[in-house]
């Protein structure tokens, strides 16, 4: 077997080139991943692309004229609340606007935003200006209708 040393040399050459190649790709791919992680974040698909893990969250009806007390609404992907039939959570309330407010997740946390409603939205009794984070157990009131937020860990 004259060619045994050659065979062994070729085997190690193969493994060496292979690992150098894989290492190069892994490093380059990692840099690529970092660069894009800082840049693009918002997309319109609503499909979670990492960041905060999406926790299950629900709005539970506390009092309402039209919704059953204790009804649960899933918050996945964000919901709109209002009197209009186009709202994800539609209810009748004299003081509610068509699309009154919206609740949406971002990076694993949940936020409420008043959609320029006529009579305003109250979070734990305080009027909502712009967007405010809502936490587990918070109460959201629109006119005579109120909801409690429940976030599961």
């Amino acid at each position, binding site marked *: 077997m*004259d*060619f045994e040393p*050659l*065979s*062994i040399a*070729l*085997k*190690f*050459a*193969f*493994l060496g*080139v*292979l*690992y*150098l*190649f*894989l290492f*190069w*790709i*892994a490093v*380059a*791919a990692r*840099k*690529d*991943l970092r*660069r*894009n992680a800082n*840049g*693009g974040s918002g*997309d*319109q*698909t*609503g*499909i*979670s*692309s*990492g960041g905060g893990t*999406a926790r*299950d969250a629900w709005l539970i009806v506390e009092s309402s004229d039209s919704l059953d007390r204790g009804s*649960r*609404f*899933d918050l*996945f*992907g964000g919901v709109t609340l209002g009197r209009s039939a186009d709202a*994800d959570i539609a209810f009748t309330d004299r003081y509610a606007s068509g699309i009154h407010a919206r609740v949406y997740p971002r990076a694993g946390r949940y936020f409420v935003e008043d959609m320029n409603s006529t009579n305003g939205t109250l979070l734990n009794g305080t009027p909502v200006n712009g967007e405010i984070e809502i936490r587990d157990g918070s109460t959201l009131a629109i006119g005579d209708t109120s909801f409690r937020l429940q976030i599961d860990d």
Partner: protein
Amino acid sequence: MGTGAVGLSARNRELLALIPVALLLTIGFAAVFAQNDSELGNLSLSYGLYFLAICLATHIYIRIRLPQADPYLFPLMALLTAFGLVMLYRLDAELARELARDQANWFVLGLILFAVVIHFLRDYSVLERYRYTIALTGIALLLAPRLPLIGTQVNGAYLGVKIGPVGFQPAELAKICIVIFLASYLREHRELLVVGARRVLGVTLPPLKHLGPLLVVWGAAMFMLIFIRDLGSSLMFFAAFLALLYVATGRLSFVVIGMSMFMIGAWVIYSTVPHVTDRVDIWLDPYQDPGGAGYQVLQSMFAQADGGLFGEGFARSMVVIPGGTDPLLPAAQTDLIYTLIVSELGLFGGAAVICVYLLIAARGFKVALMANDGFSKLLATGLTAVFAFQAFVIIGGVTRVIPLTGVTLPLVSYGGSSILANFILLALLLLVSNRARREARDGEPAASVGAWS
């Protein structure tokens, strides 16, 4: 964004990456020549150059048609093909067949098909419109091996179709059809699955009304287990489906429910269908029939152990019992090709192959992350998942992590349909990637004007 951290554009990085791939093929062939013929001709160099030329032609095509596509996917897949070619060439002498030449032809055909798909599918959202047609095609392809006249049975499983001299494994193409269908279906029904969810005993259940697809896919997986007896594909499909469902809904509980349903179904089938019972029993205890049913998995384990850390060297492990034609490693060109790699390149060689699959999976999910619409995201996720799970099913099988089933090691195993299907898969991934990266660069979704050109 055109220039990366290393100062090269995406396409130039792809070009650069193809050189070590061709070099690896050359070294591999040289080693096989040195071992078999005890001489080092310049033939291995010519093979390496042929390979490089084919890859370069594809690279130029990608450069023209998909300038923004992911730069690493094609070189990584070419590396797997090179691995396969070297291993098959090494088997040719012992099995007295011309596997490597066939495989090289399939590789070229696969790349032509790759170009054709890219040419006619610039706007891949067309796929969404024909999703039911595509789904039916997929199911028809899966059932084809059971049809009289054209179906063929291999080791108790109905995997192949034979029309005249042309053999063909339809499950390979069916996997792409089914992923396209699931991606498009889940894109549309994602919200419904989530919004109507209810909690029962602390577990979030999908709404019964929209549970239909889950049950249908679960039913199809179980059906495949019984009717086509293709354990590997059914596992691969169902796993890819759960991955898609998880990405679409963000609900781990759906995956847990799906897994439990699969476990229950699999257990029922294990205890009732003899073919499945045999496979699982052999997996649990191969020594119950070491010369018969347990032979393949036992030989696979011993051959891998022989490899040690760095392997015995190219063409130095024993595939055929000397002085006869009885195989020591049955189906070394398909099922056990990973075993052969571990035997000849050792733990490091095997780990490198797994790394290549991991890197492909990472790049595939990266494509999904960058995509800007739901269908693209789910399509890239599904294609990547099905590719990665297929590698897991066969590598897991030969290392006795799960029962050994007859799926191919993507792009490495001998087989035309596998090569063709995986290059279609690559074409779709690169199409999604090209659009996503172009939109990321331009800062806005590109207008669809001229998408048909």
